[in-house]
Structures are given as C-alpha cells and as structure tokens.
C-alpha cells in the first residue's frame, strides 16, 4: 500500500518539490531498467559458452587423474611430487577488469599458460603415463582458467542484476507510489482549502451586503 510521506505540510511549495522528486524517481526507474537489460544480455552472452567449457574441463581432468594414478603406481607418489617440485613454475596470469554498466568484469589472458610445460625430468626413470598426465593436467588448467573468467563475470553480473532489480522494484513499488499518494493528498488539501476560502468569501460578501442594506 502506498503511504503518505510523513512530516510534509500540505503547501504549494511542497507540492512543487514533490512533483520534482517524482520526476527524478521515474527517470531513475527508467535508467535502472535499461541498465538491467544491458546486464542481462551480457549475462546470457557469457553463460552460453560455459557448459561446453565445463564439460571439457571435467573430461580432461578425469583423464589426467587416470594417467596420474597409473604413473603413481609405477613411479611412486613421492617421486612424482618431487618431479612436480622440479617443474618450472607457471608464472603469473594477467587479470584485467573491464566495466559493463559499472560492473567490474574480469578478463584473464590465458596466453601464458596455454603452451604445455616441457617435461624436464629424466625419461629413463619415468613412464609415458606421467607425460600423458602432464599434458592432460595442462589442458584442464587452461579450461579451468577460461572457466574462471566466465564464472567470475557471470557471478558479478548475476549479483548486480539482482541488486538493480531490487532497486528498480523499490522505486516502482514503494517510492513512486508513496510520492504519488502524497501529491494527491496535498492536492486534495489545497482544493479543500480553496473551497473553504470560496465559501468564506461568499459569506462575507453576503454579510457585507446585508449590512449595507440595513444602513
């Protein structure tokens, strides 16, 4: 239910101020719904690639685990861990942020991790399963990082879409109706006062006329 805003005197000044506020609120409502439309279209654009990427991540990771376990059986867990420590570190990924309607969307450059690490371990003391594991984990990693970019942006967009919707609803269902109810109330009060004034003037006129006739 729309409520009349409390603490406002029914004067013409207030009426003008309220009408201005209503105009601003309506404009704000329009801007928010435009913003939501843009965010929603960005959201769908990003989410459509997610499923395929996620599937390929799951698949390559599964393969990677399989070959890793087979390699572990032959070479031993500790040896593989040592080999891992000896592998060159992957280095940094470049994460930049671009903004869509004030929402910060991460962009990740996967260039630096896309080419597989070259094995620097002793081929005579390991087996081909380890090489397979290496290749597959790397593929999975690339998929994971690409997925991270999508999930990060989709998540930000989803949260912002909800916030925008909540604010638009607040304007649409609370602020604007309240302003309108108050405007109506003031207009009614002013009309009522005018009618009273009109009546009063008529009565005074009649009184004055009667007095003039008597004199």
């Amino acid at each position: 239910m729309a409520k009349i805003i409390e603490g406002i005197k029914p004067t013409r000044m207030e009426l003008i101020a309220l009408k201005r506020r209503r105009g601003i609120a309506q404009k704000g409502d329009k801007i928010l719904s435009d913003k939501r439309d843009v965010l929603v279209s960005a959201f769908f654009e990003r989410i459509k690639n997610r499923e395929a990427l996620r599937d390929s991540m799951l698949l390559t990771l599964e393969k990677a685990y399989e070959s890793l376990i087979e390699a572990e059986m032959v070479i031993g867990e500790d040896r593989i861990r040592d080999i891992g420590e000896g592998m060159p570190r992957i280095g940094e990924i470049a994460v930049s942020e671009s903004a869509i309607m004030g929402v910060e969307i991460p962009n990740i450059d996967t260039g630096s991790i896309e080419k597989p690490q070259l094995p620097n371990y002793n081929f005579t003391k390991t087996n081909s399963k380890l090489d397979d594991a290496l290749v597959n984990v790397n593929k999975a990693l690339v998929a994971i990082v690409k997925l991270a970019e999508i999930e990060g942006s989709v998540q930000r967009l989803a949260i912002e879409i909800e916030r925008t919707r909540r604010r638009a609803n607040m304007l649409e269902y609370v602020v604007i109706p309240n302003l309108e109810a108050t405007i109506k109330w003031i207009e009614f009060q002013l009309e009522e006062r005018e009618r009273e004034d009109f009546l009063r003037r008529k009565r005074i006129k009649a009184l004055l006329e009667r007095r003039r006739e008597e004199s």
Partner: protein
Amino acid sequence: MKIIAMGDKDTTIAFNLVGVESKEVDEENIRENFKSVCSDDSVGVLIMTQSIANSIREEIDLWKYHHNLPIIVEVPDKKGKLEIDPLARLIKKTIGIELGGI
C-alpha cells in the same frame, strides 16, 4: 596474478606437476588456508576440489557475494564427479532461472 590450487594429495600433486602453487588441505585446516589465500591480493584464481569446498560452503558463498577476486573454481577430485554447481545455485538464488546440467 597467481593461480593457487587447494585440495587433497592427488589434486595437489596433479597441479604441482604443471607448475601451479598447490596447498594440500583437509577439513581441519581449510578455513584458515581459505582465509589467508583470499586475503592475498595477488591471487587471481583459486582452484579447489569440491569435496573440500563443501566443508566451508557458507564462507565461500559469502566471499563470492562480496568480492571479485580471487575467482573460485571448483573441480572434482580423483574420485570423480561434481555434485553441485555453485554458480547455478547462485544464479537461481539471484535471478531465479535454472541452468541445465548438474
């Protein structure tokens, strides 16, 4: 920015092999590890096994709601599949649409 992996032994071995900094965690020390990694500004992507992530689900959800980075990606461990899709859950909660898949 850095990539960090957290999970059980096999997962850390796997990611260590390709040169990703990996932390072996269990359900006991996941909380403090998660906090220290998240408060590190140089971490861009955090890879976590879902079985570990499940034990601090609320913390992760709260973190994701208020922060952009690190981006948390949940992966299966060697036992297999992903049971829940946190992003789909978030989308259902915020926008109210269902995603296909898991």
